[in-house]
């Protein structure tokens, strides 16, 4: 099990998350996919930290986790507000900011 395998796994997880953000319509699913992308990044950082033999990557992973948590709070609050107005959680329905 070399650290490179972990990075490969992180890439696969990231691609799955990105595909989910682009394809899924439900806002909550999109949030989960964003979380998936963030966690893939965390995995990659920790793997690199192990490869280089210092703790920089792990520290960054901590930061990323904090930011992800804060971002989820805000995002879900926005989703709640939109849901109350539109009675729909589909991102395609919030399309008024157009030409």
């Amino acid at each position, binding site marked *: 099990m070399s650290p490179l395998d972990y990075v490969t796994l992180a890439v696969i997880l990231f691609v799955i998350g*990105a595909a989910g953000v682009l394809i899924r319509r439900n806002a909550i699913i999109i949030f989960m996919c964003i979380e998936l992308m963030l966690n893939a990044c965390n995995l990659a950082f920790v793997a690199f930290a192990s490869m280089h033999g210092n703790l920089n990557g792990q520290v960054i992973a901590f930061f990323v986790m904090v930011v992800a948590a804060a971002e989820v709070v805000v995002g879900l609050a926005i989703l709640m507000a939109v849901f109350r107005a539109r009675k729909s959680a589909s991102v395609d329905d919030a*399309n008024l900011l*157009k030409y």
Partner: protein
Amino acid sequence: MLTVGATGVLRASWLLLAFPAFGAAVLLLGGRRTDRWGHLLGVLMPLASFVYAVIAFFTLLGETDRSRDLHMFSYIPVGGFQVNMGILLDPLSISFALLITGVGSLIHIYSVGYMSHDSDRRRFFGYMNLFLAAMLLLVLADNYLGLYIGWEGVGLASYLLIGFWQYKNSAAVAAKKAFIANRVGDAGLSLAIMLMFAEFGTVSFTGVFGTVKAGGSGVATALGLLLLLGACGKSAQVPLQSWLLDAMEGPTPVSALIHAATMVTAGVYLLVRSNPILALSGTARLAITVVGAVTLLFGALIGCAKDDIKKALAGSTMSQIGYMTLAAGLGPAGYVFAIAHLIAHGFFKAGLFLGAGSVMHGMDDEVNMRRYGGLARYMPVTFATFGLGYLAIIGIPPFSGFFTKDPIIEAAWDKGGTSGAILATCAILGAGITAFYMTRVMLMTYFGKKRWSAEKEPHPHESPGVMTWPMILLAVGSVGAGAFLILGQRFENFLGPVTGLPPVAHGIWSVPGEIALALALCGVGLAWFMYGRVPVPAEAPAGSFPVVAGRKDLYGDAFNESVLMRPGQWLTRLSVYFDNRGIDGLVNTMAALIGGSSGRLRRMQTGFVRSYALSMFFGAGLLVLLLLVVRL
């Protein structure tokens, strides 16, 4: 002649300008408050100037070198260009100053009576004083720039006075026409001044006349021709003559002072004052004589066809100034006689115009001579003074015109060669035509049966004393001025130091002069034959081609319109079209381009979050790709 600084009485010569300038300032700035006594101040100021001019004249006579320069102030003290304003008192300028203030004062006194029914009389005197101040600056300045300031000032005063009755559209248009025609001439004069500065570095008379020899004949010719253009504009010579007849829209005292005695003679003053420049250029002098000869015939022919008494006299003025211009182009042989004729002309033409004004005053402002007739009995003083002016202008001895016009004809003849012969012939012909049209004016106005207008029902009466006394005094000049100046070479000796003496001494009688006199008498006879023997028709008959041409100012207006005005209008319309379609089109097209493209581009804002996410994804992918490429 040496010019020294002014001393004694002459140190106050700025008063000559200050009196009328003060009068103009008080009357124009004071407004309606000065209405009650405005005309009195307006008359007092020219009289004060005249008194000083007489004192200065006699003081100057007592000197050996009759040229004094009073330095007033430094006008432009800029490094390489120094212009000092000063007053030059020499025989030429003092002669003009006496004429301007003397005849001017008489006309101001006359205006008190003539304009007595006009509520704007005070404004009239303000403008007239302004004119006097500007004209005096013109003739008294010791440098070309001061002359130019006065030149522009008289142009302004002329505009204000021609358009005095602004509510009359014809007067407003005539004022504009006069100003614009003057402006063309002014361009010539200002170019001459610029050329002087460029070549000589100075515009003062002493500076320019001292260094003009170094410039060579090319510069002198250029200067001479440009000064001629300026003179043409101000003196209504061909090709800038079209404004003078329209200028008769102004009140008659204006026509008398500005468009007969003084302003229109400023061109002649300019040419005579610039004689050191003209001495170096035969081309310029020839051009001046040609302009003079053409104009004297032009004006005479127009005067023959006009039924409006003021326009006939205006044609006469154009013609007489043509004589003066012709003399000024003959060099030292003619300068003295040009100025002598100018002074005599000032007297008799002002007298004739005031007489015309008196007739108009008695005939309820009628100007059409076909509606006059038989007025000699009703206006004896006017008839007598007008008659003396008439005898003077046609050159009957011993009146003024004979003494001043004949030397010009002789000097033209003495020039020799084909040019001299042609010029003398023109001058003699002009004398004959002058006699014809002036006799026509006299016969139509004062003799014959009454043809008075039925609608106006005028009651002709003699004018009041305030109007007749100036006419009487001017008639004295008409009678005696010529003899006074010419006999005994009095004026030649007086003016000679400034202009140079005529090379040949003339007697009173000479062959060309006698031919002119004979032709003049023929002209009188012809006019009597046509207008004295048969009754004059009250309606103007359809005339032959020359008469029709004369009535239309010898197509001067038509020429200006077709050659200058219509191409100019065409050019401006072309520019407007190009501006609207071309320039505006360019700007509008650019704006439309941006508007159109923005209309297309905004369709990118679809409102779908997922398509935005896709764009971000592609962008991020591109960045990573670039990073990898750089790395490799």
